[in-house]
Structures are given as C-alpha cells and as structure tokens.
C-alpha cells in the first residue's frame, strides 16, 4: 500500500524516525539558546558549577541533535546510493535500484553504522575526560 504523510499526525504513522527527528529538531532549536548561555557562563566565569552546567548542557544538546544527525546521514547516503538505500519507494523499484547500484547500496549501509559510531565517540570522550579530570 502506498501511504503518504500529509500532516504531523500522519507522519508518526508513516515514518516514526522522521516524526522523532522533527520534534527533537524543534526542541533543539529552542534549547540552543540555553546551550549558548551555558557556554557563555563557562567561558566568562569559569568555576566548578558553570563547568558542570556546561558539561550537562552539552550532553543534552548532543542528545537533541542525534536524531537530526542520523536523518541527515541517511539523507546524504540515500543520495549517494541513488535511492537504493534508505528511500521510501516501492519494493520492486528498490530491488531494481539495488541490482543496479549494488556496491553503493552496500557501502551506504556500512557507512551509516560507521558515522553513528563516530558520532557516539564524542560524548564517550567528553564523559571520560570529565570523570578522569582530563577535560
């Protein structure tokens, strides 16, 4: 069945990932001002409290940007694979595209996992530095 999202409620049923991305994006947009204030306090008045606020706010901001990063990566990889990976198209068309762009489709699937691992390295490094006093 071909199903097209026409509004936000439909989007949730049609593509849950996209729905999560839309909401996290909106929250991140507002939260970015709080993040900016936390960075400003950390730079202007360095202390234990402002450092802790900065660290926690960075982790929250990272979490809010994660769905956007995921969708953005998928979008670029969909373009790279000529639509053979991560596209919402009829299965018979996708099968044809995968046959034609097999190596690109495979590479796109591996690359998504690779970029997610790289993305997750950020907060791990950040928390490690914080816990061991390197940061």
């Amino acid at each position: 069945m071909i199903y097209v999202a026409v509004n936000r409620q439909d989007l949730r049923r049609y593509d849950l990932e996209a729905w999560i991305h839309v909401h996290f994006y909106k929250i991140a947009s507002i939260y970015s001002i709080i993040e900016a204030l936390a960075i400003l306090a950390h730079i202007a008045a360095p202390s234990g409290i402002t450092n802790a606020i900065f660290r926690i706010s960075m982790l929250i901001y990272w979490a809010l940007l994660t769905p956007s990063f995921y969708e953005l990566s998928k979008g670029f990889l969909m373009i790279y694979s000529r639509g053979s990976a991560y596209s919402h198209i009829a299965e018979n068309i996708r099968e044809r595209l995968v046959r034609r762009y097999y190596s690109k489709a495979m590479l796109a699937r591996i690359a998504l996992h690779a970029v997610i691992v790289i993305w997750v390295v950020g907060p791990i490094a950040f928390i490690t530095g914080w816990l061991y006093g390197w940061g």
Partner: protein
Amino acid sequence: MAGASRVMLFHYLGYFGSMILIWLVMVATLLPHPMRILLKPLEALLLIASLLFGIFGILYVMRGGHRGG
C-alpha cells in the same frame, strides 16, 4: 522572500554548525595540553552557532514562515 531565505540560511548555518562543533568540542576535551588551546575557539564557535540556530529559528517562526502541517 529574500529576507526569509536569509533568516533560514543563518538558522541552518547554526544547525549544521552546532552538529559539527558539538562533536569537535567533545573530542577536543581529550587533546593533550599544548593542543588544548584549540578548545576555547571551538567553544566560542559553538556559542555563535547555537545562537544562530535558536534566534533565527524563532525569528523565522515569528515572521510566519512556518506553515507546515
């Protein structure tokens, strides 16, 4: 239209900039001491990117640009 485009340009500059810079700032905290000098400029850039993302996002909505479903 040109005004709205410029607002969205700055908004997306902050959005994509935040995504790249937050990762760089997080990883840069593990840099060895002489390289740690990079951390402050990165933090300052993230501050600018965050402000662009938030302020121009709100500006776009206030100007009635957001009419999505």
